[in-house]
């Protein structure tokens, strides 16, 4: 069983999302902050006339904020029929992975990260962490 994962980079690590979930990947747009929103919600963006919620994965995963001046990218994924934009550092290739390469996350993983990670694919070039899109975007 092989799957295709769309990959992206966050704080040096590679993550993947099932490619069928991904609507598009694009440069970041101006975000309108939402006061009093839960942490991790970085604002709303205008995606061709549609108002789309944007989630900062770095905050979600307890990672330090992106260096000042660096522009994040947006990966727009479908969650329950609603598009949601994920802020990532860089967008990578679509990679074929085999189920045999999959392994559950190690117990030593930080709590915030374990929350949103399904597991890891052991690839030749390093580990590819599979993102749990539902958890990562939950309010």
């Amino acid at each position, binding site marked *: 069983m092989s799957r295709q994962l769309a990959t992206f980079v966050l704080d040096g690590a590679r993550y993947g999302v099932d490619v069928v979930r991904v609507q598009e990947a694009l440069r970041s747009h*101006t*975000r*309108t*902050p*939402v*006061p*009093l*929103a*839960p942490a991790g*919600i970085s*604002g*709303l*963006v*205008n995606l061709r*006339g*549609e*108002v*789309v*919620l944007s989630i900062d994965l770095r905050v979600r995963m307890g990672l330090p904020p992106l260096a000042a001046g660096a522009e994040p990218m947006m990966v727009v994924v479908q969650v329950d029929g*609603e598009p*949601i934009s994920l802020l990532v550092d860089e967008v990578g290739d679509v990679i074929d992975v085999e189920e045999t390469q999959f392994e559950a996350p190690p117990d030593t993983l930080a709590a915030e990260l374990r929350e949103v990670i399904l597991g890891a694919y052991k690839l030749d070039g390093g580990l590819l962490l599979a993102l749990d899109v539902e958890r990562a*975007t*939950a*309010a």
Partner: protein
Amino acid sequence: MEDLDEIVHEFLIESHENLDQLDSDLVALESTPGARELLGSVFRTIHTIKGTSGFLAFGSLEKVTHAGENLLVELRDGRRSMDQPTTDVLLEMVDSIRAILESIEADGTEGSVDVAPVVERIRAVLEARVDAPEAAVPAEEPAAEPEPVVETTAPEPAPVVEAAEPVLAAVAAEPEEAPAEPEPAAEAPAAPAPATPAVRKVVAKKPVVAKKPVVAKKPVVAKKPAVAAAASGATGRASAVATETATEQTRPADDGAPHPVLPDMTDVGRSDVVPSPHPPADTPEVAVPPAPVTAPAEAVAPPEVPSSDATTARSAADGSIRVDVDLLDALMRQVSELVLARNAISRLAEGGGDVDLARASQRLSLIASELQEGVMKTRMQPIEHVWSKVPRMVRDLAAACDRQVRLEMIGGDTELDRSLLEAIKDPLTHLIRNAVDHGIESPAARVAAGKPAQGLLSLRAYHAGGQVVVEITDDGKGVDPQAVASTAVRRGVRTTEQVANMAPAELLQLLFLPGFSTAEAVTNVSGRGVGMDVVRTKIESIGGTVDIDSTVGRGTTWRLRIPLTLAIMPAVTVECDSEIYAIPQVSLLELVALGDSTSDGAIEYVGSSPVYRLRGDLLPLVDLRELFGVPDRSEEGRTVIAVLQADTVRFGLVVDRVLNTEEIVVKPLSARLKAIGLYAGATLMGDGRVSLILDVQGLARRSMAADVGEHARALRSDEVLHDVQTVQTLVAGIGDGRRVAIPLSAVTRLEKLPAAVVEHVGSREVMQYRGQITPVARLDRMLGSLSDQRDELTVVMYTRNERSVAIVVDEIIDIVDDHASRHSELGDHGLVGSTVLKERVTELLDIRAAVAAADPSFFSDDIDELAAFGELVGV
């Protein structure tokens, strides 16, 4: 069998619509048994269904409609008059028809609906008439199975309400199939004209039609896709109507319409216009789907159709077309986008200084506005559409609850956006159930109370101030605020102290709290724990409000205020911490610009709560920056107060500045943000930025949950200014059975405090209230009455300029309207006169004297305002 499915589908949609009408007609018929046109309409509906079901080989359906038809023939021919058993059995028939239709819709078969009991009962009713003709008994009826009557007693109300759902589901589910439909749909948009010859061809084969005068009244529903209709506008439509009227051949065009959206009441009447025995093959062009639907039925019908009942024609569908809902929604979305683009262009044009561009932009602006208005109108439907189910519902409810109810419906032609119409359906149903079950008393109780045994339930809809108001009024027992108060305390939603301080109108507001139901007995009709909070949530979710007005013993009015449309609304854009927010215009009362925050007329504080003196009344303030937790604005910054109205609460929202008023397009907000409860949606600004739309009700609820009563009172005192004739007055007892009236405008808060809070400064009594030393004025001592010593003091707080006086009374009796015309000069020391309130002589307190007695320096700092104050208290 694609074709047949299509036919069945058309049949289902049409029948559902007809049945809804049938319910209303039957109930109406019961009260006016002689109405021939109603009878004719009922008869034709059943007849059409019977005929079609025979053609489509739905045996049970045919059987039950046949039986019903026999009964209706007798009624129509005047051999029998409409009475309650007849109505019952006919309604029952309608229910079984519905059940069968639902089953057909679900799996294409008639399912297991057993029609024998109904058929049997219809026959029983028929035979009750001794001289019933033998022929009336359905020939094909199966061996009579005597069924216990109990088994199919009047249906529970719940299914009645749900009955319409399948229709809607069907409509919604349909779009996928639409493109597949071959001939007419594809043909019409390209060239409306060619359709006419085709129609004529059909007509030519049916000369019979010309004899039906009824037809002329119903031109109706050209088979034309919505785009063509909407775009080509009035001319195209008018010509289509004209041709069709001329040829009197409406049926095929009409029935071919793939997505019947408009509630088409005239189907009942219209179904008899095509007495076509021709099989579908004869008229392939237009009539393929429709002809089979009506043909078999009409082959029999014509001789029986009373030709005199031209009045049966209902006007709802005259000159209208059926349009796909999805198409309308898409159109609406596109117009929304256009409005946004227009806003962007306007911005560019304003800044550029290019005259030509500005002119073009203005033109665009005008056209866009007109287009927007036009498209919005296409989505409007009369509220009648929802009301049509009410007569039947009320009848069933009344029977189930043992009530006698007369229903009155006024303003059914008031129009609302269809999405809103959908949204108010359930709340309306809930309120009507509530009115019949809990509002209107049993006939015996009514007679005992000196009212007619028959209760009156009236629905009224009208436009008011850019909103639609829907009122549900009953003349029943009303809601007792005290019962509400004690329930609130029992349920733990409010404490005894809290309810004691609340005015009756506020107590009634408690009904809208979650989990609140005052019904003493839980019935199967209402009072199942889902209460008025659901109604309120639903109405507020569409930007509306709901309130209640009730007089014990005389009845209750529920009032829904609903915006005309949802998708586009006028709003004011404001800025806070360099972000733009939109405030719906309907909630905005006025804007107040503040100078430097150090100057006069600025924000003051009551305790820690900021307030603003707006024309002499304290307006509670909510600072958006504070609420959002962003840094305070710099001291010199000018600010603006947007005075907002949420439910009964009025408050001021402090923002950095006001930008503009504009039409904004409401974009739905992710469900993940709804929990915050402060945003009603989002919108796109002219420059493409996203802005949040503030939820005014949510803001009020979040910021002021604790002090709603206080603000409500402040609000009422505002009304005093506008209407000097009647002044809201707090009536308080001061012992010895004496009562004093205190103008409500002078009251900032009511408190119950332990007697021990009173301390002394010299010979004066004082108490600590909100961190301040507050002088105490005991009215009983001041006015020379004798009251008992109590452990608890009832205190009326009077606050101005951060100074308060605690006025101690014996008890709070009520808040009533005091008419200045009834005042008498007769007074005494400390009084400004007397009046009669609540049938008791009540002394009018000279509140200034009372306050000054407790704190002589109270008024010293604002002599110029004394005059204004005197006006308030009515001196």
